[in-house]
């Protein structure tokens, strides 16, 4: 009598998005205009989730700005909020921050990973030296200055930040949660280690045998659930598959700038309706974008 087969961890998009509930701390992987689990992000917006603490990527980007614009975010943990050459500062972030409407855990990339590592290591804080002499201990009162017990020198204690759920975008996974990124995976591993649970949104689900052909490429060895969503990082890049959709990003930035510059939320409301609220399913979103456009975004 042998054990039954391994259980598939593949779930559907809405079931995955439904794990994110009001007030939770979640992490969202990727890097600036690449590798964000956008199918999940849009579904979270559709579900009207509120008061999230979002541990954005180091560095974050317009994926987080969209969540702020849609009213989902209470607190943000990130080191950079921009769209690189598309926009120097993310527009809704900028306005919300200037109005004091957003709690910000102000940090740089070193501190960001300190906070995630502390969570992964089950430590209350980890030390960092860089930041002494800057404004960070003043503008982020969660960071404590103390003296190192060995050398006596002043240090910063960066508190642990533990996401309940990490939402990660990657190229592929098997049904058992062995995830493989194309190329680096940026800082996604750090989020996976820190979070209680990780959901991977992938371009393809492949047989376990495919994963075993190159186990060195397995970047997250065992996530908790897997969601299939081809073109799922759109409008951002999906490494190995497609580059970012410049036109779409410019459309979003224009809508954001209209709000940031003149307080006009209408262009964003139109964007929100067209791309997120109206399309009943994820596939319908892709229909709105159009297969022709999607096929133009090939990486090479």
């Amino acid at each position, binding site marked *: 009598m042998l054990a039954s087969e391994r259980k598939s961890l593949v779930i559907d998009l809405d079931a995955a998005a439904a794990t994110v509930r009001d007030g939770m701390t979640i992490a969202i992987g990727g*890097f600036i205009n690449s590798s964000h689990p956008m199918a999940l992000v849009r579904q979270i917006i559709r579900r009207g989730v509120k008061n999230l603490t979002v541990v954005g990527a180091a560095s974050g980007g317009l994926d987080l700005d969209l969540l702020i614009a849609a009213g989902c975010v209470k607190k943000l943990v990130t080191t950079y909020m921009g769209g690189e050459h598309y926009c120097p500062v993310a527009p809704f972030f900028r306005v919300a921050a200037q109005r004091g409407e957003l709690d910000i855990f102000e940090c740089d990339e070193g501190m960001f990973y300190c906070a995630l590592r502390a969570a992964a290591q089950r430590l209350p804080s980890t030390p960092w030296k860089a930041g*002494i002499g800057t404004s960070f201990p003043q503008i982020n009162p969660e960071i404590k200055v103390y003296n190192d017990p060995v050398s006596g020198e002043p240090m910063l204690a960066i508190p642990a930040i533990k996401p309940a759920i990490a939402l990660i975008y990657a190229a592929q996974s098997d049904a058992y949660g062995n995830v493989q990124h194309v190329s680096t995976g940026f800082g996604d*591993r750090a989020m996976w280690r820190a979070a209680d649970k990780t959901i991977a949104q992938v371009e393809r689900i492949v047989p376990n045998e495919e994963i075993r052909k190159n186990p060195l490429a397995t970047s997250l060895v065992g996530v908790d659930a897997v969601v299939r969503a081809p073109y799922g990082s759109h409008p951002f*890049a999906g490494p190995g598959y497609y580059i970012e959709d410049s036109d779409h990003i410019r459309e979003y930035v224009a809508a954001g700038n209209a709000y940031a510059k003149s307080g006009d939320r209408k262009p964003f409301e139109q964007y929100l309706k067209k791309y997120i609220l109206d399309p009943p399913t994820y596939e319908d979103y892709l229909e709105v974008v159009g297969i022709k456009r999607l096929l133009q975004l090939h990486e090479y």
Partner: protein
Amino acid sequence: MTPEPNFTVKELMASFISHQVRDGERVAVGAGLHVPRAGILLAHLLRCPNVRLYVVMTFTSLLKEPRMEPFYTVYDNRPTKWAEGYVLHDDFQEDPRLVSDTFVVGALQIDKFGNSNLIGVGKDYKHLQFRGPGAVGTLSMAHYVDRYYLFVQSHDKRIFVDKCDFISTVGWGEGGADGRSKLGIPGNGPVYCVTPLCVFDFDETSKRMRLKSLHPGVTVEQVIENTGFEVIVPANVPTTAAPTDDELETLRGRIDVEGMLRR
């Protein structure tokens, strides 16, 4: 009248930056800043065959690459085709010096001691006049590297201020040759500040910013007028060295093929 130079200010700045790179170092190529990126690649191709370039979270050497295919971002996957090995983004926190020995820092504000600000402009952090993008990794990189360079794409009194509203990256703190060491900060701090008008260095004793060279056609007065703090001006201020023909040829033919630095 001086003849019109056969190079742009961006090319001049790239040439200047290229001479700051030392062979054998690790050098992060922050692709978003085109001018420093071009300068680092120029150094690599002409003088520094043994630098380890950190490009989109890979390390590589590009000596054999006839032309740098365009890459404008730090997130584009395409340059990973050149990879000799990966260093993940979070690995940088494991050992900042394995990522880069030197770094280029941009800013919203820079003060006379080379402290800089990417957080925002305004007196009240909770109600900023202008919210910046955030520190990215500049704070930690600038802390740990051997030395770093400040670089700005425009030169005016909004950027060069007497005192930053917030400090995201320490330069020489409150000044003095011990401005960093008394805070326990390692490294040699900011060495030069490169602007479209000039290059600043730092006075050895006070660590206040000092005019080191003027770009062709720029006057001392122009710099003073556009700088919000008192600049130390030596008796003789040379002109920033023009890029050589070799440099221009390599820049235009192999690095800046699309002419980003000529616009």
